């Protein structure tokens, strides 16, 4: 069912990554982890309004994919979007300010956690509608093709989005018209509180292959495996061959949203959560870097300290930032 992407073996792309980039990948993963765990803390203390869907545990997917992208490439994200945005270069300060509904947030506080956009970085938006980014990503790929521009679109989506009609409508056109789109399916085992097994007949890759989109399935907690598959897929799309599909198996530690901790909703066990926490992608990658003599313990600890400082500053910036002026409520309804 699941076939290899092509003749390259899994390590061939990853083996070419420079030490500098490897350490940058590690730093980005730590940034996402610390950002999300800080959101957990801030939210739990009642400082952040609204909803929060945390990416904790899935860091290898966003980073393994985005490190392959150029600044001009586009991504679309999901309701669980903080990790994708940070991996594509989003600024923690402006993101945190947005989460707190502040004027200096990315969207002047009018979007919140599920709607952050940075057009200058090719971040076409997190999206509050499941599968909502699929049309946008394919449309951005269409405009790249029409304008003969070197821009690939990557759409991140969860296993839940696989059962939305928009997936089939847009993937069909993307395949038919050979649009430069890469589908990154984050199979984090659950759509809301229902397991993939109970909601999905067959698999994502098989559905993609039915539309002539080559597909592969990888360990989404292994950042180098994700990198390798994404690298092949993105190069394939960039060369004008059409879309590719990568399924990444992973797990979100912090439930569907902040109200879903531990076994509150009875759909998963504490034991299952702990099993997945043992597969934590960050120390796993850290161990790899140490074993390959790419770095040492002191350097990894230093990254930890630097990132923690960056996130602390972002939270402080967000807390101090002013709320939007009331006049903001009627701005930007129309261009």
């Amino acid at each position, binding site marked *: 069912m699941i076939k290899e992407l092509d003749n390259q073996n899994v390590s061939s792309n990853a083996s070419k990554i420079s030490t500098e980039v490897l350490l940058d990948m590690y730093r980005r993963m730590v940034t996402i982890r610390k950002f999300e765990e800080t959101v957990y803390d801030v939210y739990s203390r009642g400082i952040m309004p609204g909803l929060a869907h945390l990416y904790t545990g899935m860091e290898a997917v966003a980073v393994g994919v985005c490190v392959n992208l150029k600044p001009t490439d586009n991504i*679309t994200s999901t309701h669980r979007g903080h990790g994708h945005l940070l991996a594509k270069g989003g600024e923690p300060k402006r993101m945190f300010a947005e989460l707190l509904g502040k004027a200096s947030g990315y969207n002047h506080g*009018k979007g919140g956690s599920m709607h952050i956009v940075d057009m200058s970085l090719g971040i076409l938006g997190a999206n509050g509608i499941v599968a909502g980014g699929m049309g946008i990503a394919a449309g951005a790929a269409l405009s790249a093709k029409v304008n003969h521009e070197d821009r690939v679109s990557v759409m991140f989506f969860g296993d839940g989005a696989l059962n939305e009609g928009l997936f089939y409508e*847009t993937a069909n056109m993307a395949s038919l018209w050979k649009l430069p789109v890469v589908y990154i399916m984050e199979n984090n085992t659950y759509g809301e509180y229902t397991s993939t097994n109970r909601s999905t007949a067959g698999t994502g890759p098989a559905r993609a292959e039915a539309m002539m989109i080559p597909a592969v399935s990888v360990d989404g907690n292994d950042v180098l495996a994700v990198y390798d598959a994404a690298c092949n897929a993105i190069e394939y799309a960039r060369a004008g061959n059409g879309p590719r599909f990568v399924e990444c198996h992973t797990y979100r530690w912090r439930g569907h949203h902040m109200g879903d901790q531990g076994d509150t909703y009875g759909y998963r066990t504490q034991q299952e959560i702990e099993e997945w926490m043992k597969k934590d992608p960050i120390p796993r990658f850290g161990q790899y870097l140490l074993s390959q003599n790419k770095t040492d313990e002191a350097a990894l600890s230093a990254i930890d300290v630097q990132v923690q400082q960056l996130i602390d500053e972002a939270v402080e910036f967000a807390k101090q930032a002013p709320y939007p002026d009331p006049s903001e409520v009627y701005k930007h309804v129309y261009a």
Partner: protein
Amino acid sequence: MSTPERIGTIREAINEALHEEMQRDPSIILMGEDVGLAGGVFKVTNGLLSAFGPERVFDTPIAEAGIVGLAVGAAMTGLRPIAEIMFSDFTTLASDQIVNQAAKLPYMTAGQTKVPLVVRTAMGAGRRAAAQHSQSLQAWYCHIPGLIVVMPSTPADAKGLLKSSIRDDNPVIFMEDKMMYNQKGPIPAGDYTIPLGKARIHREGRHAVVICTSSMLYPTLEAADTLSKGGIEITIIDPRTLSPLDMEPMIQAAKETGHVLIVDEGYRSFGVTAEIAARIQEDAFDYLDEPVRRLGAADVPVPFAPSLEDLTIPNAAQIVEIVNEMLA
């Protein structure tokens, strides 16, 4: 107007606007079911594929959410897509893309992105097409901040308003009454545009004002001739753009005549006529001789049998009767 003009149909006027705009701006693309090779189910897009090629004119699968979804993403990244949804009834299949994505992205992102998109769609009853190919859903889209809703009633307006819609940076729902495609009238040549959000006064009379949208102009004009023979002169105003509404001339006419009838082919309940009536009563109450009258489609799914369908659409005789009643 000094612009040279010819006599042609609304179908020809829209086709001409599409040709001229695509010629003018290479960032415009056209996509929809059968819009290319077949020239559109109503032949409105005839000749565009041969003129601009498959790089800019896309025959899509039957996938309304996908069509508008791709159009939204293309609009955010440098193109100006025109998406045709064959029947306005089918826009319900794309309503997430229109309502949750296109209409909200500029606001939610504090203006970081624009969605310069036109959704053209054929609306209205009278074609004996039954309940799923005959609706007039303009009120649905008027209800959503962030969308512009345009409904032309003449060939000149169709050309000028479509050009302005294509050039506008907002998502525009452009509703074409399918029974009017053969309606003839002057078509101004060349670069003729009409500003969005401007009503048109078709006729001026001192006794009453009838506000009518889209194809409802024609029974209203017919009614005006009948009434005129009996000595009653009415003002006729077509808002042309339903959102945003150009209330000023409507308020003015309401104040001058004191008698107002509003005719729209959407449902009477919770519809366009209700909104315009409410606004007139807010701003011209003291000038009105009686409550504002409304005429809309009957609040039923559009029936197939011609004898039944005709009972659901406003007609000239009803307009004459209501105006006579108001002035009695």
